[in-house]
């Protein structure tokens, strides 16, 4: 995406509803052809961003640039942007073909062309042959496909998807995630997807924006977001995380520090400069923790002692809840070891916990930026 | 667009209230014909109080509206329950019949009631009036209560039964208290419809039980009758005051 051009740009958008400010000076650049996801808890303003782009809401101030032209004053019906609604919003009195062809009819495209383009769009979403069905004769997944076809048939510059998969059941959702990704790649349309589901965001997107309280928290590739969260909100919101609070005790090398975590000294790498005495959070994903039986505890390495509170077998992994002696509770997730099928813990078993150097991620403690 | 909206809403309410205002103002007007304001006076109120036949018709109308609304609210709630909870033969016919009553023009209902009462040899009067009024209010009660029933979590009923409540106990201890809002709303609606009715009352009441529309009809058909203004004002006042008390009671109960 490095050489991609900015297609859509929101500049210093301010938007409030009544006395409630939803967005203040919100800015965002979206590149041409990318699958961009806005991720955040409900009420974080992500849907408002989408509705501003679609033109269903007007910003109080700020610019929305599409191909460098300000479209803030352009009415929704004239924007080269189309939406796939969370509720699908299929017209119940029209057939599938009429639904998909609706936008083209409004644009006074010839009948022959409408027919052809509707057929193409339906082929893309694998619904050829469903032309004459009515929405109520379709399953949830099929409705979803019609809603997508209805939007892509317009060849929009940007396709907006508002929590579009949230109503589908788990399996169907995973399948649609793959298909959406394929459709996006095939058509080369810029997708802006809004969701509160972090798994969905990580699996489909080229880039993800994490939002909270109308503020961007972090923007980056799914990998960056997951492995190097910029602050506690992002760390907490995306997946499970274990937090060790510590103080920087010494600088060992460039960007490598010794951190004292309640008496346990660990070497930790950071991505920015820290001073001795800084308070930091050392973050570890459950799958990055290393657990040993207490008798196998390595002599040359410092770690944490604790006991197993609860364990559960999930098929792929064994998840363990561990109470540390310093009072913290950790969540660990270990891949099932096929060489050692009896590998398991018993409740109250004492264990030793640490991690492989370099798997930790350090952020500065303190209030969220 | 906004101006147009306000204009339209204002126009509709002026249309709906202009006649009412004319009635109320004229009830205090000295002039009999009410075309001009000639001064404030209570004399039509005094006249109404002396008019026994009109007062009787008035009290009959209110009595019927009260009884019909109460009976319709009770019976209609049970009907909604039957249609919602139970399977039985002719259930479809029952809901169709209710639909027919709701959709039928009053004049058609009026003559079906009249033909029935005459065929059965029932003397027209209080009872025929009451039965007819209950019947035409029923579908509105059923629809309102049924809508609320449909919104319920079915587990509520199952939970009550699981805890040992029979059908009647479930109804009395769980459903009825929860249905109270819609039962009360439908009572109010029934009361309103019954009080407003002219057509059905004209057909099913007899000389022994004079009601307001019949009495007023003969008074206003040819001439002008200031007592009617007074009557309308009193009806309005009583209803509005009861509505206010009613809503205050409901609010108190909720909070």
């Amino acid at each position, binding site marked *: 995406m490095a050489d991609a051009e900015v297609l859509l740009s929101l500049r210093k958008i301010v938007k409030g509803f009544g006395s409630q400010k939803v967005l203040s000076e919100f800015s965002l650049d979206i590149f041409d052809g990318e699958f961009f996801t806005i991720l955040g808890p409900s009420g974080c303003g992500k849907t408002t961003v989408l509705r501003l782009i679609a033109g269903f809401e007007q910003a109080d101030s700020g610019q929305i640039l599409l191909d460098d032209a300000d479209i803030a004053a352009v009415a929704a019906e004239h924007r080269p942007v189309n939406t796939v609604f969370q509720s699908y919003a299929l017209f119940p009195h029209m057939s599938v073909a009429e639904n998909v062809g609706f936008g083209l009819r409004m644009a006074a495209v010839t009948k022959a062309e409408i027919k052809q383009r509707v057929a193409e769009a339906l082929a893309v979403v694998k619904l050829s042959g469903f032309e004459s069905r009515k929405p*109520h004769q379709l399953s949830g997944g099929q409705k979803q496909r019609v809603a997508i076809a209805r939007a892509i048939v317009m060849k929009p510059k940007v396709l907006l998807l508002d929590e579009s998969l949230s109503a589908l059941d788990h399996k169907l959702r995973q399948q649609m995630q793959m298909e959406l990704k394929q459709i996006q790649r095939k058509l080369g349309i810029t997708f802006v997807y809004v969701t509160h589901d972090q798994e969905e965001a990580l699996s489909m997107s080229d880039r993800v924006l994490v939002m909270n309280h109308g503020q961007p928290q972090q923007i980056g590739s799914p990998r960056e977001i997951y492995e190097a969260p910029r602050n506690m909100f992002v760390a907490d919101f995306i997946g499970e995380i274990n937090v060790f609070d510590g103080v920087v005790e010494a600088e060992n090398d460039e960007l490598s520090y010794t951190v004292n975590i309640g008496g346990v000294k660990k070497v930790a790498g950071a991505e920015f400069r820290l001073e001795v005495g800084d308070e930091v959070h050392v973050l570890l994903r459950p799958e990055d923790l290393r657990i040993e039986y207490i008798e196998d505890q390595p002599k040359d390495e410092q770690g944490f002692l604790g006991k197993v509170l609860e364990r559960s077998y999930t098929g792929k992994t064994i998840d363990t809840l561990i109470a540390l002696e310093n009072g913290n509770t950790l969540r660990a997730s270990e891949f099932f070891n096929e060489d050692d099928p009896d590998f398991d813990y018993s409740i109250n078993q004492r264990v030793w916990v640490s991690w492989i150097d370099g798997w930790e991620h350090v952020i500065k403690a303190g209030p969220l930026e | 667009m906004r101006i147009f909206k306000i204009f339209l809403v204002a126009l509709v309410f002026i249309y*709906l209230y202009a*006649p009412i205002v004319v009635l109320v103002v004229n009830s205090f007007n000295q002039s009999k014909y009410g075309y001009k304001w000639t001064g404030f006076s209570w004399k039509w109120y005094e006249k109404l109080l002396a008019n026994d036949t009109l007062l009787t018709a008035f009290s009959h109308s209110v009595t019927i509206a009260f009884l019909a609304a109460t009976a319709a609210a009770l019976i209609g709630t049970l009907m909604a329950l039957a249609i919602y909870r*139970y399977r039985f033969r002719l259930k479809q016919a029952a809901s169709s019949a209710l639909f027919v009553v709701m959709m039928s023009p009053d004049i058609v209902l009026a003559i079906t009631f009249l033909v029935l009462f005459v065929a059965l040899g029932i003397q027209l009067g209080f009872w025929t009036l009451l039965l007819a009024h209950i019947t035409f209010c029923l579908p509105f009660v059923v629809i309102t209560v049924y809508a609320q029933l449909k919104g319920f979590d079915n587990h509520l009923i199952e939970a009550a039964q699981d805890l040992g409540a029979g*059908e009647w106990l479930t109804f009395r201890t769980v459903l009825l208290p929860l249905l109270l809002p819609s039962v009360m709303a439908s009572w109010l609606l029934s009361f309103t419809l019954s009080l407003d009715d002219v057509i059905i009352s004209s*057909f099913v009441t007899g000389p022994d039980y004079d009601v*307001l529309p019949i009495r007023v009809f003969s008074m206003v058909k040819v001439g002008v009758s200031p007592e009617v203004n007074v009557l309308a004002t009193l009806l309005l006042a009583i209803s509005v005051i009861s509505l206010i008390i009613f809503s205050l009671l409901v609010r108190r109960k909720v909070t």
Partner: protein
Amino acid sequence: MTKNGLANVLSFRQLVITLTLGWLMLMVIAPHALVIMTSFMTPDSEHLAVWPLTLQGYQKVLQPIYFDVFFHSLWLSAIATVVCLIIGYPFAYILAKQPPWARAVMLVLMMVPFWTNSLIRTYAIKLILGKKGVINSVLVGTGIVDQPITMLYTEFAVIVGLVYVLLPFMVLPLMASFEKLSADLTEASKDLGANALQRFVHVVLPLTAPGIIAGCLIVFLPAMGMFYVADLLGGAKNLLLGNVIKNQFLVVRDWPFGSAFSITLIVMMAAMLWLYVIANRFVQRQGGLDDENL
């Protein structure tokens, strides 16, 4: 406990079902059947309707004098219905868009006039429209016209009266269908490039069609029966079907003829209901999440 419970199920359940079926049989189905029967019987001054069965009642309906009344009242009702629709449609839309409390207040405000009895309100309209009525006093008083305008005892007066009494009944079903019309659908059509007129024609109008038909159904046929409106405001020339039916039942006492007229109304109602069912089937199923078929 269980024994008692079972007894309760039987008795309460039985009671409720019997009450429902019994009441509706006696007060709705039987009377309708009786009216249908009466419409085919022979009029009789003493016993109202007697055997043998005949089509006389229906033949009378077709007599020019009654046929004219029928058509005239059909015409008046149709105009009143259209006026109700023109006022009621945008009004219902505005109402449906209000926040719940404002809507509740407006609905109660629409209901309050009912508490004065529609006959009395119709009489009040007479006071407004009369030669010396409120409107004419204002017009003459301000010098806009020299002579009072004749409004009372005209078709105009009847229509004003019918619209006045029936407008709320038009607004309610329309409001319900506007409430059901999800904002997503209008937004979707906007998103796909439809302008205001196109949105109205292609989306709003078809999806509120059931409300329009229901409203017309609730206004049009009852309007034909409003004899008191015609009596008070229409004078001798502007009779409604209700006047004829009332006259036949309560004055002339030709019950078969009156019944035949009513059956005609019922048949018209059935036809409109059928239309309503079709329209409803057309749009009722939502293309959204709340579809039962999901």
